[in-house]
């Protein structure tokens, strides 16, 4: 079976899963939540198969490389890591509510990858600079970090939403009543950021080691490198403000959202600036 066909189905499966999570939140029927999780798992498995097929396909075409080499492949992998990390968290916390905010991110990444006119979904050969074993470890760790920050962003959004609703006391059992409590959200934001931070650190380091072997310089102040450092510093500030100043709750949520803005700029915005990471240009 063709992997592109599977991937376009997966896009719809994630969308359906998101819709079910949403209904689960509004109507409150548990069976909907279970169906949503089931769809997310099914999508993840199908996507894994599609990625393996694409990998194999690249060998059949005589190029033979991990499907992590251009913008399309990275977007698909981004969606995959988001769903993976989300499902692990869902399984650990037994809470399905963040799915409403996180699963659509994966759907958007998938949809953007297939719809955007300037993103080609063809399997492209690897240029010499990318022919390295560090490619896999660098991309995987970076996207694990991005995905963890996505979860933190989702939780941050829920936190602010709930915080806004808090003022209106007349509807305590309404929409916000169904959202997880503040303490859980705060813990989730903090934990996903620590996870993301560790992955981002390792991602920057693997990239640095790779650059040392490929270009002879572990740090070249290329826009992507600079912005990943900025992102790293923003999250470092967030963690320091928590440890040293004891910031919690709303401030954490806002910082998680600001940090995610940096993540998105590092990932996508930087592609419009000239630099060494320009393979991601479509």
């Amino acid at each position, binding site marked *: 079976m063709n992997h592109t066909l599977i991937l376009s189905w997966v896009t719809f499966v994630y969308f359906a899963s998101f819709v079910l999570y949403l209904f689960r939140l509004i109507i409150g029927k548990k069976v909907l939540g279970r169906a949503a999780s089931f769809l997310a798992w099914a999508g993840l498995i199908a996507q894994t198969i599609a990625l393996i097929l694409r990998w194999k396909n690249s060998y059949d075409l005589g190029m033979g490389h991990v499907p992590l080499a251009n913008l399309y492949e990275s977007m698909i992998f981004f969606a995959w890591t988001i769903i993976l990390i989300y499902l692990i968290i869902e399984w650990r916390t037994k809470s399905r509510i963040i799915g409403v905010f996180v699963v659509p991110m994966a759907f958007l990444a998938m949809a953007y990858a297939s719809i955007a006119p300037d993103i080609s979904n063809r399997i492209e050969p690897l240029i010499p600079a990318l022919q390295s074993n560090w490619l896999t470890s660098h991309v995987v760790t970076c996207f694990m970090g991005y995905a963890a920050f996505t979860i933190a962003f989702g939780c941050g959004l829920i936190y602010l939403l709930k915080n806004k609703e808090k003022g209106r006391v007349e509807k305590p059992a309404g929409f916000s009543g169904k959202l997880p409590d503040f303490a859980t959200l705060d813990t989730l934001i903090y934990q996903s950021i620590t996870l993301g931070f560790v992955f981002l650190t390792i991602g920057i*380091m693997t990239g640095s080691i790779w650059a040392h072997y490929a270009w002879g310089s572990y740090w070249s102040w290329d826009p992507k490198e600079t912005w990943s450092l900025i992102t790293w510093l923003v999250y470092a500030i967030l963690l320091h403000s928590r440890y040293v100043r004891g910031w919690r709750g709303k401030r954490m949520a806002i910082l998680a959202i600001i940090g995610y803005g940096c993540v998105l700029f590092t990932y996508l915005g930087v592609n419009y600036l000239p630099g060494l990471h320009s393979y991601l240009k479509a």
Partner: protein
Amino acid sequence: MLIVLLFIAGTFIPSPDVVQTFADHLSPGAGKVFLFFCLSDLYHSSLFYILLTLLSLNLIICSIDRFPALWRQYNAPHFPEPDGIFDNLPQSRIITVDKEIGKIKPIVESCLKKKYGHISEIEEKRGHFFYAQRGRFSLFGVYIIHLSILIMIVGAIIGSIFGLEADINIKEGESVNVANLTKSNGLYKLDFSVRCDKFTVEFYKDGTPKTYRSDLSFIKNGQVRRPGTLLVNHPLTFDKFHFYQSTYGIAPEIKAIVTYTNAGKKSGSMTLAAGDTFFLPQSRARGFVLRVEENIMQTGPAIKLRIVSQKKDVQFWVFQHLDQIVAMNPNLLTKMPMFNPGLFQPLVFSLKRLEQTYYTGLHLVCDPGVPLVALGGLLMVVGLMIVFFIPYQRLWVFMKLKDAKISISIAGRSNRNNQQLQKKIDYLCKRINEEIKA
């Protein structure tokens, strides 16, 4: 008054940390803006070094500043337990038994010891207390991270002061021992020379480059010390330098692969470019390459040679596709002796093919700061793991006699990941229950 002072100190001391990180955070960002305005060397500007120094100073000062508090936390007395830690405990955390305390105590003690190693205990009026802890050293994990940043900064500074970056372009077959410094316009004389034996570029079917490969020889004191193949992502090391494949290009001249026969026997093969001279030992003659043409008069590649010996001095063309040309003009060679590759008898030359000459562009780096930066990176990962994934957990077990029964309460504190601690306490309760029953 004291509280206000403490408060000011408390808010002020961490703030330079945040402000400083912000300042540093701004400089790369601003750097990007400046890059557009051609202020390209911001990252090596004095402003940047000053910021780095400030950041390092700030890291050191904050670390020293916070040390006493951390040290107190590290050496916190085990008893008494934090206020109210045993209040409002769920029933599952209180085990009630009606056995003698003398029998129960060793059981609890051994359960704790098995999990936590060293434990301490105290006998009070209220009852008997045990204390256990784990991951205390993780309090200092943050110092490992800060130290790793300092090490990396030192490594980067060493690299920028003592490091050297240079580029060389070498034509195939040539050797070079002078490199152009990358950051300034100066030249750097190497105490060895590098010869490019061959450069190969391969492409995929769609035209994307697949491989850039330079076959190099490193020559020192006239001897080839080390031949090596250089690929992108696979640098070579010679002397103190790392060599990287950075670029390539086509040199202006074209090489001709020429063979000749002597009275019908195959005698020699040469690679020639326009302007080259060569020696023909059998005929005691000297040859000159006058011209190398890729496509002369629509007949394909050809070269023009001049051969000079004591008796003769002739000039003639050698066509690659001579057979086809003769087939179309049967009398060509008699009419135009200049087109006869066997004009210098008894030698007959033939042109096998023309080849482009490549030059390979190498990037040379010598950075003594790299080991320090790598060490810093390693330490940072270790530090992050310790800080985030090894929590400092403290446990108190309180045994007291109540209505002729002993109640054992277990409570704990953790600086991170309270869930994990709660799970551990649940497990401990279960173990103690099982052991008591047994």
